């Protein structure tokens, strides 16, 4: 009904609607072609490639490439390393942002505004900038070490070039989106609902677990997915801050491709995509549900 009202005006309907259909499709055609050429086609051809081997008898279906990946200890170790640290980073970033979102939900004033602004700051900082900055801040003889020594703490060992280095940068980078998403979720719980619960004698823990948390399920899922998808395929942060071995999959793929072994890089990419697809599927499903319920 609303769409009918907003539709541009025509004399007596039908022909006009047809015209709109063509115009609409024509206008979205160009970016759609880009999406097909640069996303759909390469992905499909890549997946198809990894499931085939080309031998003397031509192209044949085979799982040999995947078998090779999983037979290689170093590859498996990289995959395991990537997943473990991605999940740890997600958990940390999600916990911190939940804490921040809760604090921001129940606070107001200048301090809260500043904390809000600080938590969104990473949105404006590209990965390459923060990676370099982290090297200088957390690295050996970096500013953080200097500050600790000034207050008398001398036992600092730098996380630079250890798995903890990229982990810290991941958490730093990942804060804003879950804070935004969780804040939006918390904003849907009215003050009245919380006051009513408090009137009935509910303590902070009960209010959190029984009133806020159920409302936040979807937001938490979306927050987790956003962080996971951002971290799992990252390159710059682990490249600059991480240990030489094991490698995150992004770094590994880049090196494989750089060594002119595109077929192996494809296998690595397909495996990573499959992992991401599980999380991405949850993300898309939750997003669809949210859009429907809006």
């Amino acid at each position: 009904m609303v769409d009918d009202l907003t539709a541009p005006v025509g004399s007596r309907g039908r022909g006009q609607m047809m015209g709109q259909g063509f115009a609409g499709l024509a206008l979205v055609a160009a970016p759609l072609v880009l999406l097909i050429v640069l996303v759909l086609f390469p992905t499909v051809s890549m997946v198809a490639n990894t499931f085939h081997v080309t031998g003397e008898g031509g192209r044949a279906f085979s799982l040999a490439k995947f078998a090779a990946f999983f037979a290689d200890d170093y590859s498996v170790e990289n995959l395991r390393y990537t997943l473990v640290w991605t999940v740890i980073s997600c958990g940390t970033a999600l916990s911190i942002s939940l804490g921040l979102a809760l604090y921001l939900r129940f606070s107001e004033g200048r301090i809260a505004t500043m904390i809000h602004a600080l938590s969104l700051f990473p949105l404006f900082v590209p990965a390459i900038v923060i990676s370099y900055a982290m090297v200088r801040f957390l690295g050996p003889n970096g500013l953080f070490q200097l500050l600790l020594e000034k207050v008398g703490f001398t036992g600092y060992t730098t996380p630079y070039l250890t798995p903890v280095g990229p982990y810290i940068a991941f958490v730093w980078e990942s804060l804003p989106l879950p804070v935004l998403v969780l804040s939006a979720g918390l904003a849907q719980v009215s003050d009245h609902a919380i006051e009513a619960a408090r009137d009935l004698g509910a303590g902070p823990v009960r209010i959190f677990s029984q009133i806020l948390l159920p409302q936040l399920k979807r937001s938490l899922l979306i927050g987790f997915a956003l962080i996971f998808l951002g971290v799992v395929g990252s390159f710059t942060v682990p490249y600059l801050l991480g240990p030489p071995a094991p490698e995150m999959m992004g770094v590994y793929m880049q090196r494989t491709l750089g060594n002119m072994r595109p077929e192996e890089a494809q296998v690595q990419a397909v495996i990573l995509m499959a992992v991401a697809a599980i999380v991405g599927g949850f993300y898309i499903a939750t997003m669809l549900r949210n859009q429907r319920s809006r």
Partner: protein
Amino acid sequence: MRRSKTPFGGLILLAAMGLAMLGPIMTVMVWAFAVKWRYPNLVPSEWGLKYWHVILGRSTVIEPILTSLALTSVATTLAALICWPAAYAFARLQFPGRQLLLFSFIAANAVPKFTLFVSIAVVFLQLGMVGTFWGVVMVQMLSAILFMIWIPTAAFRGIPPALEEAGFDLGASRLRVFWSITLPQAMPALAASYVLAFVAIMFEVDSALLIGAPKITTMPLLMLSLSAQVIVQEAAVLCVMIWVPCFALLLLTRRFMSSKGIAQGFGA
């Protein structure tokens, strides 16, 4: 609601957040203007613009910056040209598959970009497009589409239809209504989407590395190589020089984009 009276806890949180969020960037800022900064001094012993002159006098630095500016401008502008009309169509026109297509643009977000770039790189390798200007432009446009579809679509949707109807009713043609009313109304959000995409592409390492390198060296690739160098200041100067103006631009766009809007764009 109970708001805490004493902001003591808040102050501690603020201090911790300040150190964690701003500390790294501040370090870079200081390095950019430090001539001598030796362990264990908390501040540089000598300040100055020495390394700015060093950096700006080197063609191996200037060229990647110009390359990046050219690539990013072309890619962002082309993306805007194809995405903004599409956003208008998504917001205002009825056509078959509208919801599904709009959703496919947003869902492309759920695929890790690096794996996409690997798949594109393999295709481009076969086509001989790796290391070419237009090859990189195409991939960067893909990165831009993310910002250039959903922000403008939301902006066009946010314009009350009555504004356009009022113009149409007063005798303006549909083109005139679009030009004089719809476009100016959507302009702040369109500009914001342009800036967001521009900055994101400008600093994007992944596409430049997989599709552009080694023939095309962009600014982020230069930073990547400078980051590992012994002379700390060079990368610091580059960071401050390129990022600070971009940051200022991004702050301007914040006025036109609510936090809630961003959260909704990601499906919250």
